[in-house]
């Protein structure tokens, strides 16, 4: 039979020699490999105490941005929900009342905006679809939970607080922004 690699060895059931039969050399050989790894550099870290540095364009937990005046940018147009391959996003729109102009940028806003983090595959399509530059993925990771319910993130978690704004400038550099504006590219349409 033709082999796929040159490392394969044809198995045989020939009678073992005495050295092979007592197994001690084989154990020593195996243990030496194990012990050698004790002194190597560790590839793992103990996560909650130690954290790795993330790429600035890591696709983690979402944020719903506010504009510079603190108004919510999201207008509940539903394009993120229709772009979402996992159907993780649901929303309910409401009309802005007179006197709420400082809260919402457009005359319509998302009254309820929910992302099911168990469904989300962090593909970033919602961010690409958003016409209002409202939703972004960030370099934060979604915290683990014991129950399923808390994984449905509502506006209380997703909308950024004005005193704790989340920096998405790496995702939204001028070059990226210009690229998104340029609809000549098929994948931007």
């Amino acid at each position, binding site marked *: 039979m033709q082999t796929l690699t040159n490392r394969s060895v044809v198995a045989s059931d020939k009678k073992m020699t005495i050295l092979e039969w007592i197994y001690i050399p084989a154990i020593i050989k195996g243990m030496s490999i194990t012990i050698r790894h004790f002194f190597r550099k560790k590839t793992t870290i103990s996560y909650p105490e130690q954290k790795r540095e993330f790429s600035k364009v890591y696709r983690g937990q979402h944020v719903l941005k506010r504009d510079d005046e603190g108004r919510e940018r999201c207008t509940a147009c539903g394009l993120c929900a*229709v772009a979402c391959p996992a159907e993780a996003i649901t929303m309910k729109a409401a009309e802005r009342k007179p006197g709420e102009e400082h809260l919402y940028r*457009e005359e319509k806003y998302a009254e309820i905006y929910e992302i099911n983090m168990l469904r989300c595959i962090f593909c970033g399509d919602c961010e690409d679809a958003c016409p209002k530059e409202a939703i972004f993925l960030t370099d934060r990771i979604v915290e683990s939970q014991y129950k399923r319910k808390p994984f449905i993130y509502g506006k209380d978690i997703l909308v950024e607080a004005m005193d704790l704004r989340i920096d998405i400038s790496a995702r939204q550099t001028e070059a990226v922004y210009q690229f998104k504006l340029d609809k000549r590219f098929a994948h931007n349409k």
Partner: protein
Amino acid sequence: MPLLKVTIDNIEVEVEAGTTIMNAARIIGGKVVPPAMCYYSKLEGSGGKCRTCLVKVAQGSARDPRPMPKLVASCRTLVQDGMVVQNITSPEAMESRQAITEFLLINHPLDCPVCDQAGECHLQDLSYVHGLQETRTVEERRTFKPIDIGDKIKLNMNRCILCYRCVMVADQITEKRVHGVLGRGDHSEISTLIVKAVDNDFSGNMIDVCPVGALTDNTFRFKSRVWFAKPMDAHRKCSKCSGKVVLWMKGDELLRVTGRKDKYGEVGEFICNDCRFEQKEKNDWIIEGPRTIERHSVISQNHYEISPGESVRMIK
């Protein structure tokens, strides 16, 4: 009466005398049908205003084979025997369509993320195909405040393209029209003169005939995007109209009621306001089943259903 032979984009079709180029193209169907923003086959006298349907007539008729000197509005021009029409095969017509789209969008706010019409808007479809990628105008767009004309209809004049369909529908199916187009040229606007409610029994049809989001249903305002609602054919016994409607459902919730639009976005049978605005319970209706939606429409997104014809074509 002998049939007239007309060639549209190299496809020959025989039609009766008195047919417009638009309707001859609609007999052929498919991509050769020019888009229409103002023409509405159910409304008499509609058409000729928006100029999106301009086509090139390469040969006037068999007797007089000279081409027509300018592009003609296909919704208003009658076919003649031996006429040769170019629509998508004429670069001239396509270029003019792009220019017309740009003109229609000059004062359009492009607030599609907010607008309730998005997803079933003809201007959106038109600009998707023929629109420019960027705006070339720097001038201020004219702006109006959205107003309620009647308690169920919202008029957002910013989005209007002055197609006159809503005026014609009022002329045709009501006895007394209370709204119209005021002003001239750039100052034209749809209004009820002195804020007066449109409260005819059939006034809701203004919403259905509006090709853009200028006239929208106040009872559906911001309830849902159209592509999240599921359209169902339904009917009920109604003393005023045929009672044949489309229900836009979300689960068991009935979000809105509209007339049944064909593939050109035209309502066959106008429905009354009672059916449209008052019967918002599922039990008020006899549901016939889900409505067939074109696979490429955004409304069919995430619904996973395809019409039988589509699936046959996919297997082939």
